[in-house]
C-alpha cells in the first residue's frame, strides 16, 4: 500500500456520478451539420487550410497550428465545407469565433491513416506528430500536449522522474474519464508507456478517485496484462483532487511551487483521455476528432457518448431526452463549468460534460450577504490562499494587493464559493481580477514596445539628418576641390556686370545640361537586332520631322 499525502482544504459535494454510468458508452450518430471552431485549445487559433466548397475526409487537416502554443484542427467526418465564418461557441463571453461548417456525406470515410511505431521514432518526431494530430489536454485546460512533452528548457538533460495519469475526475456529475478507463484501459496503458518513454520517466502513477472502483479494477487489469510496472493508485474522493497540482501532492507529497510548473519538480501529469487520444494518434494515425462526453443532469437517459468534435450540443442533448422542466445547460461540471449561452454551440475538445439543469437540481443561489470574515473559504482553499482577503482586494479593485496575496495561484475550483455562508460568488471576483491584471500587463507591454519604437524612430531621423549633413559637406568639399579651374574664367572678365556673369552661369549650366542629355543614351536599345534598331531610327527620324514641322507651324503666329 502506497503512502498517500493530503492537500489542504477541499470539499465534498454530492457526486451524482452513478446516473450516467449505468449504461456503456454509446457512439453518437453523425449529426446533419458539424461546426468546428478553429480555436479549441489554449494559445493561438489554428489557421484554416481548406476553402468553402472543399470536400474533406474524416481526419483531414482543416486548420494548421499557427504559433508556438497552438494545435491542429481536423475534419471530424467526411463531407463538404459549406462555410468558414464567425459562429457562437462555448465561451463564457458568448462571443463568436471562426468556425468551419461541415455537412457530412454520411460515408464517414477516413483519410489515409499512417500508424507509427513510437519506439522507432525520435521524441521530436513524435511531438510533431502529436501537434499535427491536434492532441491537447482533455481534462479541461486544452493545453497542447506536445509542449508538455518537450525537454526542460533550463535542464534539457534532466529526466522527468514521475509521470502521473490523472483519472481522478473529481467534479460531480462528470463520468467520461471513468467510462473511458473502464472501456479503453489497455490503450490508455499503452499510451502511458509511450509518453513515459518520451519523457524518460522511471515511475508511472495512475491516480483514480476511490469512488470509481470499476475504473480502478479495469486499469489494474490492463496494467497487469501489459506487464508494465505502473501503479494504479486509489486516491481519496475529495474535490478538487483531480486538479493537477493537488493530485501531484496527494500521490508524491511534492508541492508545485508558486509560479512554477510540475516539470520543475520532476513530475508531469496527463489526463487519461489525453493519453488515450495520443495513443490513437500515434499507433493508429487517427487525429483527435472525437471524445467521450457525459450527458447528464435533468435528462431521461443520462449516459456517456463518444461524439464527434463539432457536434451541435442540441443533438447531444436530444440523445439524453431532457425533462420538460429543464431551464439551462452547463458545459463542464457544476463547480467549474459554465452556463451555455445557447445549445446551438458545438462540442469542442474541452467539452467533457453537458449537464441539463432545473430549479430542483440547481436551485438559484440565495441572495448574497456581506462577508463576515468567517474564514471558511480559507479552510476550504486547496491552494492555501486566503479567499476572503482576495475578495476584499478584488471587489475594491486593489489589484496590486490581490497579486501580492498570490491571486494567480488560485485554480478557480470554486471550493470557496461552495462553502461561503454568505453565498458570495468569490470565483467570479477572482476571474474578474485576473483578467483585469492580465489586460493591464498586456497594455504595459504594448506601451513599452511603442516607446521603444518611438525612440528608435527619433534616433533614426536624427541619424539620417546627420548623414545628410555629412554628405552635403563632403560634396561641397569635393566641389571646392574640383573648382580651381573655374575662378580664372570669372577673373578674365573683371569688369563684366554682375547680371552678365549670372547670365553666363545660367548659360553654362544650360550647355552643361544639354551635353549631359546628349551623352545619355537609352540603354534598353543596346542589345537589339539590327532590324529593330533600324525601325527605332526611322521612328526617331519621323519624330524629329514632326518636331520641325510643329516648330515652323506654331512659331510664326506667336511672333
Amino acid at each position, binding site marked *: 500500500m502506497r503512502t498517500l499525502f493530503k492537500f489542504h482544504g477541499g470539499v465534498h459535494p454530492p457526486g451524482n456520478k452513478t446516473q450516467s454510468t449505468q449504461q456503456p458508452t454509446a457512439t453518437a450518430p453523425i449529426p446533419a451539420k458539424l461546426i468546428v471552431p478553429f480555436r479549441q485549445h489554449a494559445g493561438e487559433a489554428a489557421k484554416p487550410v481548406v476553402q468553402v466548397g472543399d470536400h474533406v475526409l474524416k481526419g483531414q487537416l482543416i486548420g494548421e497550428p499557427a504559433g508556438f502554443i497552438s494545435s491542429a484542427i481536423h475534419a471530424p467526418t467526411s463531407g463538404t465545407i459549406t462555410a468558414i465564418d464567425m459562429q457562437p461557441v462555448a*465561451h463564457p463571453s458568448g462571443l463568436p469565433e471562426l468556425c468551419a461548417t461541415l455537412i457530412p456525406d454520411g460515408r464517414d470515410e477516413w483519410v489515409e491513416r499512417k500508424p507509427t511505431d513510437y519506439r522507432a521514432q525520435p521524441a521530436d518526431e513524435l511531438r510533431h506528430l502529436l501537434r499535427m494530430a491536434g492532441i491537447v489536454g482533455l481534462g479541461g485546460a486544452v493545453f497542447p500536449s506536445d509542449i508538455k512533452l518537450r525537454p526542460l528548457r533550463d535542464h534539457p538533460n534532466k529526466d522527468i522522474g514521475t509521470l502521473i495519469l490523472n483519472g481522478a475526475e473529481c467534479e460531480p456529475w462528470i463520468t467520461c474519464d471513468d467510462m473511458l478507463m473502464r472501456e479503453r484501459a489497455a490503450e490508455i496503458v499503452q499510451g502511458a508507456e509511450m509518453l513515459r518513454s518520451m519523457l524518460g520517466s522511471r515511475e508511472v502513477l495512475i491516480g483514480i478517485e476511490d469512488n470509481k472502483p470499476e475504473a480502478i479494477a479495469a486499469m489494474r487489469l490492463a496494467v497487469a496484462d501489459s506487464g508494465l510496472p505502473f501503479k494504479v493508485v486509489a486516491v481519496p474522493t475529495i474535490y478538487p483532487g483531480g486538479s493537477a497540482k493537488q493530485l501531484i501532492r496527494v500521490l508524491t507529497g511534492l508541492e508545485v511551487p508558486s509560479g512554477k510548473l510540475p516539470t520543475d519538480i520532476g513530475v508531469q501529469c496527463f489526463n487519461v483521455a489525453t493519453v488515450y487520444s495520443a495513443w490513437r494518434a500515434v499507433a493508429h494515425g487517427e487525429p483527435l476528432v472525437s471524445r467521450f462526453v457525459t450527458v447528464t443532469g435533468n435528462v431521461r437517459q443520462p449516459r456517456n457518448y463518444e461524439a464527434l468534435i463539432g457536434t451541435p450540443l442540441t443533438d447531444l442533448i436530444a440523445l439524453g431526452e431532457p425533462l420538460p422542466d429543464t431551464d439551462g445547460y452547463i458545459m463542464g461540471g457544476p463547480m467549474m463549468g459554465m452556463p451555455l449561452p445557447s445549445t446551438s454551440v458545438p462540442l469542442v475538445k474541452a467539452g467533457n460534460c453537458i449537464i441539463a439543469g432545473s430549479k430542483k437540481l440547481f436551485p438559484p443561489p440565495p*441572495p*448574497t450577504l456581506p462577508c463576515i470574515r468567517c474564514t471558511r473559504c480559507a479552510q476550504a482553499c486547496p491552494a492555501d490562499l486566503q479567499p476572503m482577503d482576495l475578495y476584499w482586494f478584488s471587489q475594491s479593485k486593489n489589484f496590486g494587493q490581490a497579486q501580492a496575496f498570490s491571486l494567480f495561484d488560485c485554480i478557480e475550483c470554486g471550493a470557496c464559493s461552495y462553502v461561503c455562508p454568505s453565498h458570495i*460568488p468569490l470565483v467570479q471576483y477572482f476571474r474578474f481580477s485576473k483578467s483585469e491584471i492580465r*489586460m493591464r500587463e498586456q497594455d504595459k507591454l504594448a506601451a513599452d514596445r*511603442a516607446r521603444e*519604437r518611438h525612440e528608435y524612430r527619433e534616433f533614426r531621423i536624427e541619424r539620417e539628418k546627420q548623414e545628410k549633413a555629412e554628405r552635403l559637406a563632403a560634396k561641397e568639399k569635393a566641389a571646392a576641390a574640383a573648382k580651381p579651374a573655374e575662378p580664372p574664367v570669372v577673373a578674365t572678365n573683371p569688369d563684366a556686370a554682375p547680371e552678365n556673369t549670372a547670365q553666363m552661369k545660367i548659360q553654362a549650366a544650360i550647355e552643361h545640361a544639354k551635353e549631359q542629355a546628349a551623352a545619355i543614351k537609352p540603354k534598353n536599345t543596346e542589345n537589339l537586332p539590327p532590324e529593330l534598331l533600324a525601325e527605332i531610327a526611322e521612328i526617331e527620324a519621323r519624330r524629329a520631322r514632326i518636331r520641325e514641322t510643329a516648330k515652323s507651324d506654331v512659331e510664326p503666329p506667336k511672333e
Partner: protein
Amino acid sequence: MLSALLVMSAIAIALGAVLGYSAIKFRVEGNPLADKVDALLPQTQCGQCGYPGCRPYADAIVSGEADINLCPPGGEEGIQKLADLLGVEFKPFGAGAEPKPKAVAFIDENTCIGCTLCLQACPVDAIMGAAKQMHTIIASECTGCELCIAPCPVDCISMVTIGENVENWKWKYPVYALKSVPPKITSPETKSPETKSRTPA
C-alpha cells in the same frame, strides 16, 4: 590637539572624496521623476496633450507646466495613477477630451497612392510602404494616435475600433443583488420589546 585636527580633517577629506566620486560615478541623467511619469503614460505618442509625444508631456508634468488630465488615451485610471505618483488631487478630463474606444488605423488600399506622407507622420513606424508602393498598417504596432489621418492627401485612412473579441474579452465585475432585509425594526407591529426600549421615543 593637533592630532585631533588632523584626524578630523583627514576624515573630512576622505568623506568629501567619496561624495565627490559618487557624484560623478552615480550621476543621474535627466529627471528620474520624469521617467516614472513617462512609464505611466500609454505611449501612443498621439500629441493630444499638446506636446509632441509622451516623453515631452512627462517632462512638462514634472516641470509643473502641464496638468495631469491631458492624456485621453490613458483614461481616468491614468490620471489616478499620475495623481498618486505626484501626490496631487485627481482631476477629471476637460470637456471634449474624454477617452475614445481603442482603435487602429486602416488604409483603404484601393485609394492609397503611395505618397509616404503617413509613413513620415507615424510616431511608432507602424506603417509599411515605399514611394508609389501600397502602404499598409502593422495593426499590432499601431497605437491609434490618428496622426496619419491628417497628412493623407486622398483621405484613405480611417480608424477601425477594436471591438470585443475572444482574445481581449475580460470577465466582468460581478453584479448581484444584495439581500434586502425587510424593515422589521421600524414597523410598529413587529417591534420586539428590546428594539422598542432602544428606539428613542
